[in-house]
């Protein structure tokens, strides 16, 4: 499959690969997908409690090139955003940015799900 240069760049030099300490109260973790489906994405956000901004984001992804690039891009976009701004990231923004071919759109959906799931986790940990 012919991929865009942007996608290949995110695949070859993925940004923000890693693991945040999920036991921290200000870290939200989203784990979506399943090994049987061929992709599992784990996306984590670390929120600055005073400013409410996402100060760090990390991912690890089991999946094809598009899944890895989508999660890498998502973590880049998340940093510096408020939770509301982060929630509004749409999978079609990822499709557009990486020029994902139609058969790979599900990778962007997974990335959006991972973002929402990480935010939900953070909010449930911090709901008083």
């Amino acid at each position, binding site marked *: 499959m012919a991929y865009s240069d942007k996608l290949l760049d995110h695949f070859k030099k993925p940004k923000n690969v890693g693991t945040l300490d999920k036991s921290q109260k200000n870290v939200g973790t989203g784990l979506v997908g399943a090994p049987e489906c*061929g992709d599992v994405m784990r996306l984590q956000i670390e929120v600055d409690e005073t400013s409410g901004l996402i100060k760090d984001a990390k991912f690890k992804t089991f999946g*094809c090139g598009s899944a890895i690039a989508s999660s890498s891009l998502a973590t880049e976009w998340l940093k510096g955003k408020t939770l509301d701004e982060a929630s509004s990231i749409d999978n079609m923004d990822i499709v557009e940015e990486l020029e994902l071919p139609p058969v790979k759109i599900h990778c962007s959906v997974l990335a959006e799900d991972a973002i929402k799931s990480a935010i939900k986790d953070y909010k449930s940990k911090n709901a008083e």
Partner: protein
Amino acid sequence: MSDKKLIYLDNNATTPVDPRVVEAMLPYFTEHFGNAASRNHPFGWAAEGAVDKAREQIAGLIGADPREIIFTSGATEADNLAIKGVAEMYKGKGNHIITLETEHKAVLDTCKKLEKEGCEVTYLKVNRQGLVDLAELEAAIRPTTILVSIMFANNEIGVVQPMKAISDICVKHQVLFMSDATQAVGKIPVDVKELGIHLMAFTGHKMYGPKGVGVLYVSRKGPRVKVTSQMDGGGHERGMRSGTLNVPGIVGMGKACELCAEEMEADATRLSGLRDKLEKELMKVEEVVFNGHTEFRMPHMTNLSFKHVEGEGLMMTFNQNIALSSGSACTSASLEPSYVLKALGLGDDLAHSSLRISLGRFTTEEDIDFAIDAIRTGVNHMRELSPIWEMYQEGVDLDAVQWSEH
């Protein structure tokens, strides 16, 4: 990784044409361009003579009579002609066909089409190594069974089926035995008479010949088999396959068969040595699963699953330099992981993680060393990115995790 090196390890998909084959073909595009069916002038005679020679070269490789070679456009057409042609020709005897779940789509989809037209088809399961169960095969035979179609060697895992034993069962029950031998012919010894195969499909481009030419072997005696033509026209190929013969292609396939007959043994010895080295080195990587049969298999290939790594992503780490295949859904047109690997009982996760590496006549030891290194590096890199590899290392029971299916 550098962009200059390009290594081809996907010889089960197609092989390069041997330069000696190209050389044999060239005069038949220009100088000897005649139609082999033009019986009344020297242009036709030259073409017919070349086709006759190719028929002998091909028959020689598989132990057949030259008159038993029916030229087609490839193995897919030969499979179609064999199965549909037998179903039509022998419909007075019955309408039941037996085949394997792990056959090539050219066989499976042909059978599915026939089911819609009133045939009944049994799709036999295979064991964990990919072999057919002979007792199950025999038990599946009914009074209405007209054909057993079982591939010689599997394209994804290389397992070689017990052809003689299958034939014995077919002969005992007076059922025709057809085999898709696309992956076997030219690479391992295939003798249709010794093995008791009645119809056999194969193609030029998997044995260093050109694309667009294939053969259906149809036994002329013991038993005398006939297939109803699926292409109507000038009545070429003893009425079984009309259409002007692809003379350059046929000449090329003939030459390819001649070379295989001469070099197969040496190629197989050399390639199995390289394959064993590749396999041994890659099996040293943690959490690798071998797919197939360690004894009954093709000499030039292997299929391995690298757990917790997705095949397409893994291939992308080295596909600027190395060409091979994966059973991952992301590399298939259907977006489903390999049905062959699933038929072995592998979970979808292992099918997604598989690589098929197939060597060929022009593979060198240097290529293999490069591939070992690149695949190992790729697996390590992808595992660093993989959350399930991290979970596995932390001792998480992955089967117990509640995944969010999507």
